[in-house]
């Protein structure tokens, strides 16, 4: 099979490979997710990451040559963060009416997530730069990278932590909310969605959107709020202490 090996070596080194692999695996994972009735454990991001990462490891393709193609998808995170203004603007009436409650919940949730991460990391004896990379993990990945850089964490690690955090929220949210007896009515959906957007950003929001339109709207709102709050407050908090 030397021909095949040669071809593989060639293909895996072109940007085309990373881009194609990301899209094809994601589309398949998305189809499987729909087939399985959107079960939380079948989360398409989780399985796409697992499949691609293990595929690369097995075939000895280094991450940078994968990223050479995948960067075109990664790049869209920037404009996507700017685009978050759109769901916020759509809910401006809602925001104006209930801003103090939403702000209070967003602050409480953000502080609980970041504070407990820092405390637990310290209690479990994780190295300082790992602990600092854990602090911004409930914010969407590109912003978490920026914050981690500002407070002395490792940006790449912060991004991975943010993705795992999103997955944990998307996987466990439903069970936690049911256990806490949050009702399944419009106000309950709003609270569920808002919590998913606050504690597990875009991946949680994608999950919320899938389950209920109200939950999805509130998740988008929470995600946007958390981006602003965290990028303002986390660096400030670390400047003071």
């Amino acid at each position, binding site marked *: 099979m030397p021909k095949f090996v040669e071809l593989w070596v060639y293909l895996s080194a072109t940007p085309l490979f990373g881009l194609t692999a990301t899209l094809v695996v994601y589309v398949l994972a998305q189809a499987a997710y729909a087939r399985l009735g959107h079960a939380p454990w079948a989360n398409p991001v989780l399985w796409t990451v697992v499949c691609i990462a293990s595929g690369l490891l097995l075939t000895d393709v280094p991450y940078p040559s994968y990223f050479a193609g995948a960067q075109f998808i990664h790049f869209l995170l920037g404009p996507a963060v700017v685009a978050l203004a759109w769901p916020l603007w759509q809910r401006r009436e809602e925001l104006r009416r209930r801003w103090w409650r939403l702000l209070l919940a967003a602050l409480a949730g953000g502080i609980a997530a970041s504070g407990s991460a820092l405390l637990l990391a310290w209690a479990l004896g994780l190295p300082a730069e790992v602990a600092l990379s854990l602090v911004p993990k409930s914010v969407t990945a590109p912003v978490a990278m920026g914050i981690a850089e500002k407070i002395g964490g490792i940006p790449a690690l912060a991004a991975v932590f943010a*993705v795992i955090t999103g997955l944990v929220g998307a996987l466990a949210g439903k069970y936690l909310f049911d256990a806490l007896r949050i009702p399944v009515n419009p106000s309950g959906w709003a609270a569920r969605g808002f919590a998913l957007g606050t504690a597990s950003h875009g991946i949680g929001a994608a999950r919320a959107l899938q389950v209920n339109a109200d939950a999805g709207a509130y998740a988008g709102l929470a995600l946007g709020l958390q981006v602003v709050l965290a990028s303002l407050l986390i660096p400030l908090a670390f400047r003071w202490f």
Partner: protein
Amino acid sequence: MQALRGLAWLLALQSVGELMTRGLSLPFPGPVIGMMLLLPALRWRVVREPVSACADFLLVHLSLLFVPVGVGVMTHLSLVSQYGARMLAVIVLSTLAGLAVTVLSLHLLQGRPDPMGKEGPDA
């Protein structure tokens, strides 16, 4: 064409944001400044219509955009093998704490049901 024009707006605002955060050494990442600039600009139709077409597409597929970074976990395998279980424990517990605190505080604060999305189109 609308969506393309929207993407141009988003990229232009992101660029302005990057320039402002570098130039004025602000605590926000560039795209966040771009988002805060876009919010008031959405009152104008020339901005709103193209941006909404592009934003809806980008945000529906938001979770795909996290895949390249997520795969990056393979570059930290040594850290993962050394601290993996502890890191995962921190992430799981702190995420559950964040979810629980947010959902309970909003649920207690909002009291009566107050559905939204009745007046406007849903995202």
